[in-house]
């Protein structure tokens, strides 16, 4: 796909070649002399429209834009926007497309970014849409796997936790569909991947579903952990029963392959014990770092003059 001026609404729009182009650009931008890097988007602006809370995504976009010489501004919660007065998303997006050269949108509705891209004259980047997608997180996750494992093809990846409502999971699975990987989906039965969202995933990726992490932990190269959220369970007892099954601690690390890594889109609550943080397996903070680099590369590809 032509990256310059492109919308990033779904990872489904990215083929393997597109992803590899972003990864290569990320490698180049990471090694680039800071002064040159700041020329990539000099004079460009990124508007952010965050109608849902965010820490990493918004900050990493701001940091990424600053690192390539651009500026960013916007709204970081619904309450401070005119959406609170009943203004439509369409109108807010149209306004932002007047003020900025590109925008990042986070919204609670599935498909909100695709709709925004339709009404905006400027590129729209999906910063998280409902429980549907979080494509830049998937780009960051795939890049992290490539960096820390040396490759993506051939990996056995376990995605653990809330697979039903976690938007990062769907984007990651669609992204992994471009590679030759083995996937285990580990979750309580009530939080399994949604049946109405797996049609495209099943066509590209074979996966095994399980509710017991112990069944596959010793086969995994990547343990991708997501939060199991208490509010997803109708009763607390059910939550307490399953919560411990999906916690990565020292005992679980012992069952993992020597070179296996633990990833997490963050924020975590208690699904990865702090004792894991200082082990070589812990790669989630490095993953967050790559979030800034991959987003900087993406912004430079979309907004830059092609000199990357």
């Amino acid at each position, binding site marked *: 796909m032509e990256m310059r001026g492109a919308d990033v609404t779904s990872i489904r729009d990215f083929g393997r070649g597109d992803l590899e182009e972003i990864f290569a650009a990320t490698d180049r931008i990471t090694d680039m002399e800071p002064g040159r890097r700041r020329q990539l988007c000099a004079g460009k602006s990124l508007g952010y429209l965050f109608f849902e809370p965010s820490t990493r995504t918004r900050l990493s976009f701001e940091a990424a834009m600053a690192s390539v010489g651009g500026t960013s501004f916007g709204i970081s919660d619904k309450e401070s926007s005119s959406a609170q007065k009943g203004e439509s998303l369409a109108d807010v997006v149209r306004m932002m497309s007047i003020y900025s050269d590109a925008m990042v949108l986070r919204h609670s*509705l599935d*498909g*909100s970014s695709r709709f925004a891209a339709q009404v905006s004259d400027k590129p729209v980047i999906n910063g998280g849409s*409902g429980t549907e997608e979080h494509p830049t997180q998937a780009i960051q996750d795939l890049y992290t796997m490539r960096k820390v494992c040396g490759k993506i093809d051939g990996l056995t990846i376990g995605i653990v936790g809330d697979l039903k409502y976690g938007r990062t999971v769907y984007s990651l699975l669609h992204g992994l569909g471009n590679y030759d990987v083995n996937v285990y989906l580990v979750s309580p039965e009530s939080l399994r991947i949604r049946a*109405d969202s797996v049609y495209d995933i099943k066509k590209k990726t074979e996966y095994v579903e399980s509710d017991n992490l112990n069944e596959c932990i010793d086969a995994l190269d990547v343990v991708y952990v997501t939060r199991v959220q208490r509010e997803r369970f109708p009763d607390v007892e059910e939550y307490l029963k399953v919560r411990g099954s999906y916690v990565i601690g020292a005992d679980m690390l012992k069952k993992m392959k020597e070179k296996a890594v633990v990833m997490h889109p963050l924020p975590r609550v208690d699904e990865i014990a702090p004792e894991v943080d200082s082990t070589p397996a812990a790669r989630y903070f490095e993953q967050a770092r790559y979030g800034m680099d991959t987003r900087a590369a993406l912004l430079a590809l979309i907004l830059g003059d092609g000199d990357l």
Partner: protein
Amino acid sequence: MDESELTVRRIREGTVIDHIDEGRGLQVLAALSINGSDGGVVTIALNVPSAKHNKKDIIKVENILLRDDDTNKLAVIAPRATVNIIRDYKLVEKHRVSLPNSIGRIFMCTNPDCVTNSGEPIESMMDVVDKTGRVLKCRYCGRILDITKLRYM
């Protein structure tokens, strides 16, 4: 005339929808908003013996010609249906329904959290990703439509 035969008055102008999948005739009527309020004759026959498919439903409706949207609805609800156009008591056109590559406007996405159900100025758009299996996918949220729970715009 054999008294066991059903007799239905011929129509001068209108449409006969034949070979509707057994049991879906009433759903077709509702989907096409055919309720007889225009005063035209509407005849529906359910569970009619069929040489091809064991049983079928048939709808005969006077003075109404189906629009493209109606045909698309029909193709989703009753994929084996045939549409017969009657003019001056004669059959002038007969065709099987078929699914287009995408269907705009007429079906609401079954995902309540889809942006197309939010009141934003947007029309639904379903991509037909499998014509044989009647698999429709919302172009916005990416979810597969549950065709047993169709709702119309």
